[in-house]
Each structure stands twice: as structure tokens, then as C-alpha cells.
């Protein structure tokens, strides 16, 4: 379970947010451009440090300003798929998926088994030996998701994972995410600006505006006509 209280002064406004996400729950963060959605993911992953607050994941403090705790990025066990997927273009698909496990010095046989498992779940087994730089947008997203999940994360963060995808690829990547989150029983935070994405895969939605959570509810209750925030 993820519990976080974040405070960070951004350029134009302060980010003040309380987040709670349960295992096997997909929490969708929505909001206008520059609302602070990606910043939230960067803070949770450890790429950015908040000014104050706390981040607690499965009972373990990852950040606690009062106690001076700040677990480094490498040790957080958080799978993070960045907006551009950032698959390593010089490595093959299977090498991409294995990267995190090799970095954690897992046994060779275990890595091979896990790589096969996650490539199967994300439907990229047939691309195992293809250099990642040669893949389409949808294939890259699936590789990035498999790579993030293969480290056995306690939390999955996805930043605009469906932006560059066509309808068919989007559906297939969404299915892969839902299957994997359910398989690992971990919370998942998805940043998107598409209401349809939130409705199709989200369990709960936060609507952010200028660093603050303005609305929280079920995907079916999202205010229609774009994102008109209730006063």
C-alpha cells in the first residue's frame, strides 16, 4: 500500500498532495498540462526530492522529511515507465527486460525465467532478439512495462503510457498493465490526460490542478465535457 504526503514548491505554485493507493488498484492522475502530475511520479520514484512530507510503501519509509529519511532511487523498488518509454535502443528486447534484474545481481537462470514470463505477459516474446531501437511505439511501451515489472516492484508508475499509441496498441498495452498489476498485487499510478483511458483501466481518479487534488472519485463519475473541475 502506498501512502504519501508531498509538498514541493514548483516554479509557479506549490504542490500539496496526499495520495493513498491500495494493492491491485490503478489510481489515475488527471489534470491540465503543468498541473504537477509527472512531478508527483518523479517524487515518488525518487528522481526528485520533495521539500517536505513522507512516502510510505508497504510499511517502509521511502521518504520522511521529519526523520531525515530519503531512500535512493536505486533502492526503492519502484517500476517507472517514463513518458517516452526510454527503452535502451542499443539493447535487444530481452536485454532491456533483463536490465534491472542484472543490475540487482539476480541469478542467471532466474533472470532468464523472469524475462520469459514478463515478455509472455506483455506479448513481446516474438521480439526477444530485436534491437529495441527498431520497435514501433506500442512495442516500445510494452517493452518498457515488462522491464519495469520484471524487477518485482512494490509500485508501478506510468507517465502518459498511451500517448503515442493507436487504438489497437492502446487496448493491448492497457490489458497488459491490468494483467500485470493484478498478477503482482501492487498499486499502480497512471498519469494520463485522456478521460477514456481513466474510464477503461482506472479504479480511482484524482483530478489535479495547480498542484492540488481538486476532485477524487470513480472513473465513471469523472466530470464530462473535458475536465471541468467541480468548485
Amino acid at each position, binding site marked *: 500500500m502506498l501512502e504519501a504526503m508531498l509538498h514541493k514548491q514548483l516554479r509557479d505554485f506549490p504542490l500539496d498532495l496526499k495520495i493513498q493507493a491500495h494493492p491491485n488498484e490503478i489510481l489515475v492522475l488527471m489534470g491540465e498540462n503543468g498541473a504537477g502530475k509527472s512531478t508527483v511520479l518523479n517524487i515518488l520514484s525518487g528522481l526528485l526530492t520533495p521539500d517536505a512530507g513522507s512516502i510510505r510503501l508497504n510499511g517502509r519509509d521511502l521518504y520522511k522529511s521529519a526523520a531525515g529519511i530519503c531512500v535512493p532511487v536505486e533502492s526503492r523498488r519502484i517500476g517507472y515507465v517514463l513518458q517516452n518509454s526510454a527503452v535502451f535502443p542499443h539493447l535487444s528486447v530481452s536485454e532491456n527486460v533483463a536490465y534491472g534484474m542484472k*543490475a540487482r545481481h539476480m541469478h542467471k537462470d532466474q533472470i532468464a525465467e523472469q524475462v520469459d514470463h514478463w515478455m509472455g505477459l506483455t506479448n513481446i516474446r516474438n521480439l526477444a532478439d530485436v534491437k529495441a531501437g527498431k520497435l514501433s511505439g506500442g512495442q*516500445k511501451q510494452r517493452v518498457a512495462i515488462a522491464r519495469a515489472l520484471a524487477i518485482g516492484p512494490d509500485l508501478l508508475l506510468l507517465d502518459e503510457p498511451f500517448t503515442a499509441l493507436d487504438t489497437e496498441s492502446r487496448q493491448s498495452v492497457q490489458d497488459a498493465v491490468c494483467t500485470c498489476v493484478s498478477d503482482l498485487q501492487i498499486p499502480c499510478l497512471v498519469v494520463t490526460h485522456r478521460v477514456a483511458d481513466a474510464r477503461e483501466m482506472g479504479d480511482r481518479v484524482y483530478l489535479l490542478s495547480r498542484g492540488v487534488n481538486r476532485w477524487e472519485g470513480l472513473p465513471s463519475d469523472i466530470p464530462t465535457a473535458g475536465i471541468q473541475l467541480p468548485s
Partner: protein
Amino acid sequence: MTVSFLGPDRYRRTLTTIGAAVLVASVTLYLALPVVALFFRTTPGLFISSLCDPAVTAALWLSLFTSVISLGIVILVGTPFAYVHCRNAYPGKMVVDTLIDLPLVLPPAVAGMALLVLYGRVGLVGKYLDMFGITLAFTTVAVIMAQIFVASPFYLRQAKSLFEQLDPSYEQTARTLGASPFRIFTTITIPLTASGLVSGAVMTFGRALGEFGATIMFAGNLPGVTQTMPLAVYVGLQGNFNVGLTVSILLVIISFTIMIAVRFLATREVRHA
């Protein structure tokens, strides 16, 4: 009455084409003619017999040896230095940036003088080294030091620019996957910038091979010890002209090969996702 056989537009186009052709031909000839002249001044027989001259072989091997050592040091020290420099903000970074570029605009003779003043037997550092029986000036080590000083900016600038341009999301993702900074550097950063780094290394090697001013000031001109190929050309001009000519042709061939290698490497940059 003047009769024009060409319409005004065609006439203008023809004039433009002729003007462009003359311009391209002038620049090309200006750059190529001196180089071509070297080849016309000798014969294959004379060239091959001069190649066997001990002065030529000694200069050739010394140049290759010192340039390879210089390049190795520049790569081993320069690559991590450029990375640390790019990824961190620290006081005086602008000054360091300027110092990296300084040898590019500094006359090589001044560089040689500066090295001599610092490391010579009565130099600021050299006098202390001398107490321990260590002499740097006028040795092969001095040749290498001069080459590093003059040629390293070619590699450092290239490495700096490559690391700055690399999309940060690759390294950030690798961090979230649990990779250490060293693993990220060796498995992500270096492979993604490799072809650019190699092309910087080739340019550095070429510059080190052609180094003259700093070498003659700081290392002198001792055959077999500090007399590199450019210095052999200079000596040849005063004595055995054929030796100077042969070494010059060798340098032209090596330089040309280097430029072709750089162009080839530049066309096969790794495509980023």
C-alpha cells in the same frame, strides 16, 4: 543592337551556375593543390627508398607510439571527467569549461613554453621533481605531455557535447531499475554515445600525430627520443629534403584516412528511441 540568345531568367541562372562553379573550384584547388604538389614532387621509387631511411622509421614509430599513449590517457581520464563535469554543477564550472577550450586557441609554441616553465628543470614543479631525479622536459614523456595538452580538447569537447545531448530519461530509467552510477555509465551512457566518442578520439589522435610547436619547445628535437614526424619534416627541410617529403606524404595519407574514418563514423550514429 545587341542580340541575346538566352532569355533573362536563363541568362541569370547560367551566370549563377558559372559563379558557383568558379567559387567551388577556387576553394577546392586552394586546399587540394599544395597537398597534391607533395605527391608530384617525388617518385614511387624515391618514396619507398626514403621510407627505409632510419630517420623516417624512427620518427614514424615515435609518433605512432606517443600518439597512441596520449590518446589512451585522454580517453581513460577524459571520458569520466567529461561525464562528471556535465552531470554536476560546481563552483568554477565556467572557468573549467574555458580551460578545456583554451588549448584550441592558444598558439602551440605558447603551450610548449608554458609546459617548460612548469615542468622544466627550473620550472615551478620541475625543480621539485628534479630533486627526486625526475626529469620531464626533453624526454619522450614530454612529447606525450605536449600532445595531451594540445589534442585533448578535441575529445573533451566532443564527449561533453554528447553527454549533454543524451536524453536524460535513459539514465533516469536505469536508476529506477536499480543500476549503480558506474553500471549506468558503462552500459547506457557509453554505448549510446560510442560512435561520437570514437570520432572525437580519431580527431584527437590526428591532432596529436601532427603536433609540432609545443613538442619542439617542451621536448626538443632529439632523433629517436623526441623527434616526431612533424619535427622530422622540419629537419628534412634543412637537410635531407626527400626525408621531409616522404614524412609529409605519410602524414597526408594518415590525415586523409582519419578524416574518412570520422565521416564514416558520423554517418552511423546510434539511433536513439
